[in-house]
């Protein structure tokens, strides 16, 4: 359907005013923060903390590690703010920093114990009533994935990042992100198909 439309309909579509306004507001905050306005940086924190948490949570094994990674990431970003070029997208820049912080935490903690990981991944943070069999199976399946495969599938399928964005965040080639996503999906489907065969 999209192919039937004239090309200019897709390309020259103006930015929605709200989005453009948000970008302009963000740019003002960035410039003010670069001039040393701490309150402006707090504004950037409030704008981006949820997405930053999502990036960190996809990479780390636990909610607590994700929180630490978000705090580390914002601190690194604050220190490196003078090197940020305002014409860049602040979110993409911040996500790379947060992803690095999360990977660092993962390396430091060396969470390799699949049992501990299963427990932490399956911990119900928001809704304890949702501990059904499918989720348990899925948690077991996630524990079998590598940290990178887990991060890629969560960032792509849950958070909606593109392969290019994920590759940038994790410092891997785009093809590797695609391949990781494919393997992660196949592995989790296998885990769930066993559940289907043995209800």
């Amino acid at each position, binding site marked *: 359907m999209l192919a039937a439309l004239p090309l200019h309909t897709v390309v020259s579509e103006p930015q929605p005013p709200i989005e453009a306004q948000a970008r302009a507001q963000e740019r003002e905050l960035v410039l003010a923060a670069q001039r040393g306005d701490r309150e402006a940086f707090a504004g950037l924190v409030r704008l981006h903390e949820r997405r930053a948490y*999502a990036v960190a949570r996809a990479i780390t094994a636990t909610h607590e590690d994700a929180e630490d990674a978000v705090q580390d990431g914002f601190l690194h970003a604050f220190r490196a703010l003078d090197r940020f070029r305002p014409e860049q997208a602040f979110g993409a820049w911040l996500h790379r920093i947060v992803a690095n912080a999360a990977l660092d935490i993962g390396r430091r903690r060396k969470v390799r114990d699949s049992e501990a990981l299963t427990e932490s991944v399956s911990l119900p943070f928001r809704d304890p009533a949702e501990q059904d069999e*499918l989720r348990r199976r899925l948690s077991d399946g996630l524990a079998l994935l590598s940290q990178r495969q887990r991060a890629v599938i969560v960032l792509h399928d849950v958070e909606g990042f593109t392969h290019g964005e994920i590759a940038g965040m994790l410092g891997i080639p785009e093809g590797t992100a695609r391949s990781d996503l494919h393997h992660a999906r196949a592995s989790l489907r296998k885990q769930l198909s066993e559940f289907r065969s043995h209800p």
Partner: protein
Amino acid sequence: MTYEPRIGPDGRDDDLTRALRQIYAAPAEEGYWSTLAQRIMSRIAGAVEAESWWSPLADWARVGIVAAAAAVIVAGLALTKSREAEARLAYDTIIETPRTAPLQIATEHGSGSVRDATLRYVISP
């Protein structure tokens, strides 16, 4: 409960995605996010304060390092000078006869030759 995979055109599995979203759900309370933002800003303030404390110390440390290096250089030069002076003194002691040293006057004995007198002079204490 059974699991029937429903694969979308992009390869996304709806049930899988839904279950993943439940597991990775971010906290929904507004209070959580405002608290997290405060914690982040407190951490930044703490780090900045620590750096501002460290900064003068670092300046003093730099001054101290420069002073210590200068002291080492001066001490090295002084040591070299001192050694040179000692060496010169040692040479002087060896190659110069002290003016105050008693001169032994060789007296010619009747039976001795000039050669004997020289030898006596040389081996005399």
